[in-house]
């Protein structure tokens, strides 16, 4: 499990620039990121090297931010690798609420929010999938 920060951002020019400048100036490195957007606003979900520091910083700057535990899996960077995960979840009745990915040398990291975190962890462990911890992912 890893800690993901979700930030509410209006869908307007310049907002992301201001946001990323804040992170950059405070030595916070983004490890993975995805945006879910609507016409008016977006929710930026990100994995950073220091979530506690980042959370405190964003709160201080009056950003609306929340923390969510999500799954991080390392898989082979090859065709069909994601299918195995998706099938495993589907076969066990676990809903993937959202999913995104980031690449490292020779492998891919999949970040998943599911509706039943504990069940998903058990199934993935049983299937010998490589679950990453906080330390694993922050130190990439």
């Amino acid at each position, binding site marked *: 499990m890893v800690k993901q920060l979700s930030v509410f951002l*209006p869908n307007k020019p310049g907002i992301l620039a201001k946001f990323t400048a804040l992170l950059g100036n405070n030595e916070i490195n983004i490890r993975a990121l995805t945006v*879910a957007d609507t016409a008016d606003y977006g*929710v930026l979900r990100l994995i950073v090297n220091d979530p506690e520091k980042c959370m405190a910083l964003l709160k201080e700057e*009056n950003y*609306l931010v929340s923390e*969510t535990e999500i799954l991080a899996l390392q898989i082979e960077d090859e065709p069909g690798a994601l299918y195995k995960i998706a099938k495993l979840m589907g076969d066990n009745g676990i809903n993937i609420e959202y999913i995104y990915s980031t690449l490292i040398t020779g492998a891919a990291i999949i970040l998943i*929010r599911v509706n039943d975190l504990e069940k998903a962890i058990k199934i993935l462990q049983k299937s010998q999938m490589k679950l990453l911890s906080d330390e694993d992912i922050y130190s990439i």
Partner: protein
Amino acid sequence: MTDQYAYWNKDMELKTRAELDKLQDKRLRAIVKYCYEKVPFYNMVFKEANLEPDDIKTKDNLIKIPITKKQSLRDNYPFGMFAVPLREIIRIHASSGTTGKPTVVGYTANDIAMWTEVMARTLTTPGVKKGDIVQNAYGYGLFTGGLGFHYGIEKIGAAVIPISGGNTDRQILLMQDFETTVLTCTPSYSLYIAEFMKQMNVDVDKLSLRIGVFGAEPWSESLRTKIEDALHIEAIDIYGLSEICGPGVSVECPEKTGLHVWEDHFLPEIINPETQEPVSEGEQGALVFTTLTKEGIPLLRYLTNDISTLDSEKCNCGRSHIRMTKVLGRADDMLIIRGINVFPSEIEYQLMKIPGISENYQIIVDRDILDVLTVKVELTPDTFSDKIADLQTFKAKIERQLESTLQVNTNIELVEPGVIERSVGKAKRVIDLRKEKI
């Protein structure tokens, strides 16, 4: 029976309906004659209406007198409506005049004494008393709020902190250090203070606050609940307008079932704002006041634009002074959206019924081909979710709530905390962009 209720002028406050009627008739005859003789404007109005002061014998004849509108005060700017020479005037107040020249009012020494007396009653009625520390965060200056409260607070023997509006850091500091027990300001500013305290991690239960007396803008019953929950106080509504005297025209008693109008000084009516005909009791319309005792600038049947209803039934508190319902809005604040009348206060009332919603919202009306009503609502940590589906469900829920009660399509725009401008004085809740396009 009446031990739980407090009175400043028990004799006057507990007069029966019949006694009040008799007193009002007597004072009405006197003020009509006074206006006719002393104010050229009223002399002309009476002559044009073929009316003699003697034609007005009781309140039943009131309808014969033409309505006085705010425009007449502007037309007679600055002192044309005064009934006394300027040397008799000891205080001048003026409205902000955002829509033209300011409206100017003048007080004689007797007027200030009367105003102080009604403010003393107004503060005593919800339970403010000698020994209280009253933080008066109404603006001091040309606006009647600050000084009106100030005189009333001193009169009852409580201690007044004349802090005026704004400087919220200091408001909170003094509230803690001086152990303020009563806060007086606009309802929106009280929420602003509460929000500020939350950010500063101030423990509300360590404060000594017990009562808030809030007015100068319409506020809904659900906003009252928000304020009471946020500050752990009794939130009391007070009403007044500078033309009639300032704050102190009416106030709620602990029953909170309407605001008692001090009828020995102010004679209220409700009329249909379009036809100007009186409505029957309990029906909604615009408030109209006749000042029964004022010397500086007496007004007959002055149209306020404030929408309310009247209830003359005797209250549990023992008073027969008529109750007006919380002002629902101003007739000129009423929005017409695709032909449907919508009061901003109704939007607020519906919004505040939704759990978790922030009290920071803004109504924006624009015109594409049809009118478009948009309400910006700030998200809070309680209502924010990292799942778009949750946010869209929340948005749809608010839209449904508003549409089903207002009968108007509404767009909800979720915005991040802090973007809606906070107000120190009267809140600017409505932006009508249609006006700029005409």
